[in-house]
């Protein structure tokens, strides 16, 4: 028995580790890997052999959602302001963290509604630039005003963003799907901000968020400078 060559499981046994458990773990990992590879293979095949869907082309509806979804991502001022709202909500914690994402889309859409029915809002460009600046400052200083004041501030900026961005429908596309895409994309930007804000409880994360707020404020200052004729 002493002259038997060492087996694969011998080192595990020498360290007092349960051989069976390790083997089953390795087998499970292998089968999981195989399953993932198979999924990847099917996914690649699906992408290789698909044809463009021509549904709703006549009304421009498919393009309407995509255009609306892409629109908020095309303006850096909008991106920064929405992410700042999310981060600030996360810094303020409950109930602001859920109140702001629920109320902001409705207020922003109200701004878009005002723009669509022809109600003039003075200084839209300045309002948008100021939103990035002030929200950046709020994040940087980790300001904690009363919830009502935070909601009012964010609501005013939401009006400006909705007024400026919610009314830019390219011709021939569905207004409904454009609106849905626009609102969903704005919600996603909030989610990105909230996601970033989740690092707030960490000591380094807290300072990182304040630094991000300072960067947003600097960019807002740049937008404000550019808004002047």
């Amino acid at each position, binding site marked *: 028995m002493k002259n038997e060559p060492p087996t694969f499981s011998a080192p595990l046994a020498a360290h007092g580790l349960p051989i069976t458990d390790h083997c089953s773990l390795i087998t499970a990992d292998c089968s999981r890997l195989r399953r993932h590879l198979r999924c990847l*293979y099917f996914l690649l095949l699906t992408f290789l*052999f698909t044809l463009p869907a021509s549904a709703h082309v006549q009304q421009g509806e498919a393009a309407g959602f995509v255009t609306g979804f892409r629109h908020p991502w095309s303006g850096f001022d909008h991106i920064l302001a929405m992410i700042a709202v999310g981060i600030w909500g996360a810094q303020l914690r409950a109930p602001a963290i*859920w109140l702001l*994402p629920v109320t902001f*889309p409705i207020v922003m*859409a109200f701004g878009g509604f005002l723009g*669509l029915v022809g109600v003039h809002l003075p200084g839209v460009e300045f309002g948008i630039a100021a939103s990035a600046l002030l929200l950046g400052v709020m994040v940087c200083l980790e300001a904690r005003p009363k919830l009502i004041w935070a909601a009012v501030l964010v609501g005013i900026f939401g009006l400006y963003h909705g007024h400026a961005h919610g009314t830019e429908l390219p011709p021939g596309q569905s207004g*409904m799907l454009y*609106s849905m895409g626009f609102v*969903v994309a704005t919600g996603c930007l909030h989610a990105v901000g909230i996601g970033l804000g989740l690092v707030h409880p960490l000591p380094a994360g807290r300072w990182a968020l304040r630094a991000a707020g300072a960067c947003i404020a600097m960019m807002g200052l740049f937008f404000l400078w550019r808004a002047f004729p």
Partner: protein
Amino acid sequence: MKRRWLPITAMALLSVPGLAQAHLVTTGMGPVYDGIGHLLSSPEELVAALGLSLYAGLRGATAGRRTMFLLPLAWFVAGLAGSMVRSVPAFPVTALSFLVIGLLVATDLRLPAKAVVAIVVLIGFVDGFFNGAALKQGAGTPGLLGILAILFVLVALASALVVSLNKPWTRIAVRVVGSWIAASGLLLLGWSLR
């Protein structure tokens, strides 16, 4: 050994796909499936039905069960009525439906059970009426039956999902979806008034 045939079969199937033709009446499977396809490919109707399901789910299992039966029924009856009229008035029904439903979900308004039922039936009637008028040229009454069936399934799944949510943040996520629906409705109202 049999698994090795799977990629080959998949490749064979994927190499001959058809073009998606949503909203075309001739799906090739009959008017009932045309009605199902119509609802699933019409966001103005699908979102309204899902929004009502979310609200019913937020209001609890009893409201969800009532909505599951009453919404498809109201939709069907009003659809029959809509298919009999010659013309329908121009009315921003989708925008107002989205706005009302979205606000109900976003605010998680605690209404009495009878009021919830009344809202569900009213919105079902209005949306169904316009839906029936639109389907008059296409799938007709069998199409409405298809819509009835798919509405039952959608409401059952969506409201049951919301009823099963226990963690507070999941209910807030539902309310965020409601705010998105309301915001879309508000913008849509602006487009229709422009």
